[in-house]
């Protein structure tokens, strides 16, 4: 089905999931206006917001099944399999995070249901960011996402760490946005275009200019800040540790996923002509991010900090897929992000159940003997750690294999080797978690008695863990979808440009 986004109806159709989610967020906001006192209110709002995600997901599915496409060149927002896949991924992450938050917020004494509205709005921003084919849309999406997440990071108002996290994230984020905006301006100056495809055609047709090069570089820096790539990563551990745990899960999976999806599209559609320029940059970022992220993670005591550095390391792996600049690479971005997000949401979900209101952050040593008291939580966490490690039998392994194949497919062997070395380092901090949970005895008789695993969160985590295992053995549907349906980036816009 082809639509013309120029007409009002076409525009609504093109933005259907975003429109539905925004509308639902506004309705929920109205509801919050008079239901914001009790724990019941908070739960109600959370459940209603889940319906919004379901509706938006259904709309995405409908668009994908109808094969909605734009007449001519897509303007502002992409209409292709990659965007639908991105939307589905981001909506699933957001729904998962919402489920994790359902009782957690009340237990932590955070009674402000606007939280769920912010998650919905952040998701709208992510979807716009990941689906943008226009630099203005891209920036709009980025800001909607970022501003919502700044607030979410500081949502636990009574805790200093949370406020600190919000402020740090805001300052660094604003800085990054500045870079990005400056980059966009320079690109516009060099090409006179905002549309990625047109920029791509223009840049490919002309000699590289300093202005365009500077624009590409600044945009890359902006994104590197957003995905916490070394050396732009210093904010991440503090922010991840300070933010409320479900929000950390949201940042580690959703924000990172959206930024990577957008970067994948940007590099494939707008800057293919400058591949010689950005490939070495990505190479350096990948190597530094993989090695430093994983090395520093070795030294962490706190689970959240450890997972933060692990998230940095995984961002490094993802650069491999972008570096490849091939269909296999684009598919690998999707598959890897799915595997990583599912695992991250499950791991943080289990971590959230262990936390207590007002207590200090959970250390790895606090998990000692978890298996004896809460076998399923320990088992779930073990599977998550193995999946993050990329151990065979888990989806993490399949996605890592798929990811490594991308640069190998274009003849690059050093990046996969370094990635495997980094992965070898990472066993040094994933294994101690497993060791502490399963092999060490509990410290005290009372240990782990305070764990409260609300039913919705339990359900979501169990689903994620089962998905990790099932997709670890039978990943074909996902791989087929990613490599067939979702990778049609890099269209050539030359016929349109020559008018």
């Amino acid at each position: 089905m082809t639509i013309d986004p120029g007409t009002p109806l076409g525009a609504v159709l093109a933005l259907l999931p975003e429109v539905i989610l925004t509308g639902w967020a506004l309705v929920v906001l109205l509801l919050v206006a008079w239901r914001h006192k009790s724990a019941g209110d908070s739960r109600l709002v959370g459940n209603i917001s889940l319906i919004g995600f379901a509706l938006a997901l259904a709309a995405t599915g409908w668009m994908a099944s109808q094969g909605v496409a734009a007449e001519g060149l897509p303007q502002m927002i992409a209409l292709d399999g990659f965007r639908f896949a991105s939307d589905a991924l981001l909506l699933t992450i957001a729904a998962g995070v919402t489920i994790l938050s359902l009782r957690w917020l009340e237990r932590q004494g955070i009674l402000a249901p606007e939280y769920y509205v912010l998650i919905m709005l952040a998701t709208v921003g992510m979807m716009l960011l990941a689906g943008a084919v226009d630099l203005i849309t891209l920036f709009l999406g980025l800001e909607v996402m970022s501003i919502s997440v700044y607030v979410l990071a500081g949502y636990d108002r009574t805790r200093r760490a949370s406020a600190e996290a919000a402020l740090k994230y805001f300052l660094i984020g604003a800085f990054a946005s500045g870079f990005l905006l400056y980059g966009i301006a320079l690109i516009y100056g060099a090409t006179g275009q905002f549309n990625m495809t047109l920029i791509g055609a223009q840049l490919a047709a002309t000699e590289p200019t300093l202005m365009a090069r500077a624009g590409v570089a600044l945009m890359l820096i902006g994104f590197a800040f957003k995905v916490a790539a070394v050396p732009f990563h210093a904010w991440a551990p503090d922010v991840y540790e300070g933010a409320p745990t479900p929000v950390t899960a949201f940042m580690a999976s959703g924000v990172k996923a959206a930024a990577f999806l957008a970067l994948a599209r940007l590099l494939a559609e707008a800057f293919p002509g400058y591949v010689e320029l950005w490939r070495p940059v990505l190479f350096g970022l990948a190597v530094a991010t993989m090695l430093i992220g994983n090395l520093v993670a070795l030294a962490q005591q706190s689970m959240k900090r450890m997972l933060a550095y692990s998230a940095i390391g995984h961002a490094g792996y993802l650069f491999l897929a972008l570096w490849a600049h091939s269909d296999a690479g684009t598919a690998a971005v999707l598959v890897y992000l799915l595997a990583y997000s599912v695992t991250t949401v499950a791991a943080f979900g289990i971590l959230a159940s262990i936390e207590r209101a007002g207590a200090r952050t959970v250390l790895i040593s606090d998990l000692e003997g978890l298996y004896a008291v809460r076998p399923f939580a320990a088992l779930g966490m073990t599977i998550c750690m193995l999946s993050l490690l990329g151990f065979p039998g888990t989806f993490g392994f399949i996605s890592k294999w798929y990811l490594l194949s991308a640069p190998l497919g274009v003849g690059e062997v050093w990046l996969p080797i370094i990635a495997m070395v980094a992965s070898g380092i990472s066993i040094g901090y994933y294994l101690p978690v497993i060791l502490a949970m399963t092999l060490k005895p509990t410290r005290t008789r009372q240990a782990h008695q305070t764990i409260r695993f609300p039913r919705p969160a339990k359900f979501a985590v169990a689903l994620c863990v089962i998905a990790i295992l099932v997709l670890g053995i039978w990943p074909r549907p996902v791989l087929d979808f990613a490599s067939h349906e979702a990778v049609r980036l890099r269209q050539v816009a030359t016929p349109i440009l020559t008018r």
Partner: protein
Amino acid sequence: MQAFLASIGYEHWILHVLLALPMAALPLVLLLPVRFARWIALTVALTEMILGLGLWWAFDASNPALQFVTDVPWLEQFGIGYRVGVDGLSVMMVLLSVVMMPLVVWGSWKGIDTKQRGFYALLLALKTGMLGVFLALDMFLFYMFWELLLIPMYFTIGIWGSSNRLYAATKFVIYTFVGSLLMLVAILWMVKIVGDATGTYSFAYTHLLANSQALAPYGSWLFVAFALAFAVKVPIFPFHTWLPDAHTEAPTAGSVDLAVILLKMGTYGFLRFAIPFFPAFALSDAVGLTMATLAVVGIIYAALVAMVQPDLKRLVAYSSVSHLGFVILGIWGSTVESVQGAIMVMISHGISTGALFFIIGMLYERRHTRKIADYGGLARVAPLMATAFVITAFSSIGLPGLNGFVGEFLVLIGSFGRYPILVVCATTAVVFSAAYLLWATQRVFFNRFTNPKNEGIGDLSGREIAVLAPLIAAMIWIGLYPGPILRRTEASARQYVEMVESYLPPAEPIIANRTGGQP
């Protein structure tokens, strides 16, 4: 027998059943009440053994090719399939695994008294992983099984091991995991190179092997990546340091499985993958000499270190390093005799070291110590155990007439043509191994009975006899009449040697010299 097996379509289902049965029984072990756990494990193990023994007859010894091959698409878009099969090399390993399985379960019958469900579940998972490694003919599948094994082994050591178990388990996993990481890159790269050359991107072993000349330009790097994984697993000196810890701290079942199967996976990997894929590099003078030298250094060094171990289990662990050195030497000897000898050492090391670990486990269950100094004169109170230990020790030393001799002898004469000096050095290890094992036997079972705590040790029970008797019978049988085993491995060994021969620098065939000679 063959007619019967053919009539039930044995060759079509046996490998899948062997792989699937332990996994299918795993939920039963976990869900049923704990008292059933070991019975289920034993039933599964016995079934696997009975079914698996059919391979002995169904396997066509004259056919060097892969047999019972199955190829089911799994991720066919990427050339990955469920591909399994056996040849003369792997069939012996599979037989060894299935025969050991009930013994391992039975050997742990009394020793494991906590968390039995978990233990037997892990034992079953371990079994699937081991068989999978030997049966897989798809590099992707092979890598999955290869890595998956670590998890059951990690928990087996970590939960049921002795005092220093956490350190040992962690060391084991980190060594082997890190060692095999680069193998994954190497596998993917191989598929890409061969795919570029032939147009077919496939992880199938036979496809890669048939087109291995395309890999020749990158042979050195790829071989190093593979060899690292296998060398850690074997373990070849100097990658062996995880082994004494893991062996010593593991419960009896873990030690036996490690010794009998896991170590053989490394040498099997060399024979099956690392050398056939990259023969030009693997068999070049420099690499061959390096590997053979490392093997011989390992043989002698480990034997010397074993001599001074105060801990009985550690002593046997070092003896493993020493024995596995013979396998590596035999593999690089690259004659039919030496390769067959290497396979033979793999089998007989499994039998005799397995038996040694069983006996040490029985001692440990009684006295909760592995210190040699705590024992002495046990032959008086446990004569049967002493007899079993002495026979096993002789077999491990390589006394003619027992199994250990056959393999080591074949390795030594087979490799002499290529590495005469090294073989002479390796021969001295036979003396050292006699020294450490006989000395240990003397201090544990003979000498004066000094420690009154040993009074109540008691002799072997019926169950323990049932565990050891088949092993001792196998030692004597293989020692006196190794023909049936050698016959089954010969065709594959010959094919392997013919395949690699053209890459070998011409060796001086000593026997030919003597007979043909110069006029």
